[in-house]
């Protein structure tokens, strides 16, 4: 097989990689926003609860969680497809990391922003929605992009729970022809083509967020 044929063969798995990534984002973004905001606001027992939930998803190894959910949940009567397990575990893991940047971004805002909003007679939720989140969002975006890259790369793990993603395709091709150099260079290249532009975007956003942040705080 020529190198081109190998790469085209691997790219047949790009659909599954994209599917798991997009479904994972559906878990990651809402979870990050909700968990980060709740952790910022709550106190006492409810803060402990939300922290435990976040730490659970952050603290276990993704691969071990994938195996544990894929193989153990059916024994408790919960049958999930491999795609669901993959998207949920990878998404919640990325979301838990991103939630920390949501919380940090909210905490780093000037207190005066919130106080001014309350003094103008807005209720707390409106202050959050109209004043705090729009400003915090700019600081979160670079982290969100980085977590998205982690999510795309993480999808390589779903090949181990039987999904035919790009990594799985590469392993299949490896069984057909003995050409480890071509196959695994091709696989690295495929991930590079997908992730490198995203990481360049992330660096650009990082830089522009820094500039914009400086302008806002400096008045």
């Amino acid at each position, binding site marked *: 097989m020529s190198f081109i044929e190998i790469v085209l063969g691997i790219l047949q798995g790009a659909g599954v990689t994209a599917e798991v990534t997009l479904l994972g984002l559906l878990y990651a973004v809402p979870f990050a926003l909700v968990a980060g905001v709740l952790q910022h606001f709550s106190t006492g027992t409810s803060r402990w609860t939300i922290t435990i939930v976040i*730490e*659970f998803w952050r*603290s*276990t*190894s*993704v*691969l*071990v*969680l994938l*195996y*544990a959910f*894929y*193989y*153990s949940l*059916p*024994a*408790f009567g919960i049958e999930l497809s491999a795609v669901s397990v993959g998207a949920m575990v990878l998404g919640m893991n990325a979301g838990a990391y991103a939630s*920390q940047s949501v*919380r*940090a971004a909210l*905490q780093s805002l000037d207190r005066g922003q919130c106080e001014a909003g309350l003094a103008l007679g807005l209720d707390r939720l409106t202050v959050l929605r109209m004043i705090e989140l729009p400003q915090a969002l700019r600081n979160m975006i670079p982290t969100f992009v980085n977590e998205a*890259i982690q999510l795309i*790369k*993480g*999808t*390589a*793990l779903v*090949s*181990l729970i039987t999904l035919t993603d790009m*990594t799985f395709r*590469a392993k299949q091709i*490896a069984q057909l022809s003995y050409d*480890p*150099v071509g*196959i*695994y*260079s091709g*696989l*690295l290249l495929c*991930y*590079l083509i997908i*992730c*490198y532009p995203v*990481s*360049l975007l992330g660096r650009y956003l990082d830089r522009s967020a820094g500039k914009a942040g400086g302008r806002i705080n400096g008045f």
Partner: protein
Amino acid sequence: MDFDFAFALKIVPRVLEGVGNTILVAVLSFFGATLLGFFWEMLRRSHKVVRPVTQFAIDAIRSTPALVQIYFLFFVLPYYGIVLPALFVGVFGLSFYYSGYISEVFKAGIDAIPAGQSEAALSLGLGRFDTVLFVVAPQMLRNIAAPLGSYSIGILKSTPLLAVIAVPEMLGSALDVASDTYRYAEPMFVAGVLFLILALIAALLVAVLERRLGVLSTSH
């Protein structure tokens, strides 16, 4: 098939057999990644022609999955006649993957030191090497300790990847139990719980260590 708690408890010791290797691999990979990351960063600062090449290499390392890098090393090295024990390949793979991230830690740690520090040292007649060793490095250490701590936990959490190349670490022992007994639910559950406990202990140790060293903690 129902979940058998008695069986799950019974296999805990067998799964724990791999914990020594898990810790060994994590520690070796952490040192490997730190050394290699420092090397990347020095290369990036060395010369203006080398700089963009190194930058691209670091970005490439960061843009590809650890699993794929490990597969690459595991299957491509033997093709060129380099046959190493799986444990070494795994340690090298994890070191390589995390070195891309740790080079950024060094970059940020060095950038945070005011340029006046090294300028002053150079103008006092210290050589470039002495400047780095006695002026820049001690100040850098304080900046990098906290992020290095969180990457050390990240590395620990990545060690199960090595089960795919048959390194006998904790997930590997769990998979062995599973294939011996034809039951997957309990071994995978046990492995999940044990890894969670291990990661929490590691996080606690890193936090204690950071407080001892008086490091400004990151909110991460």
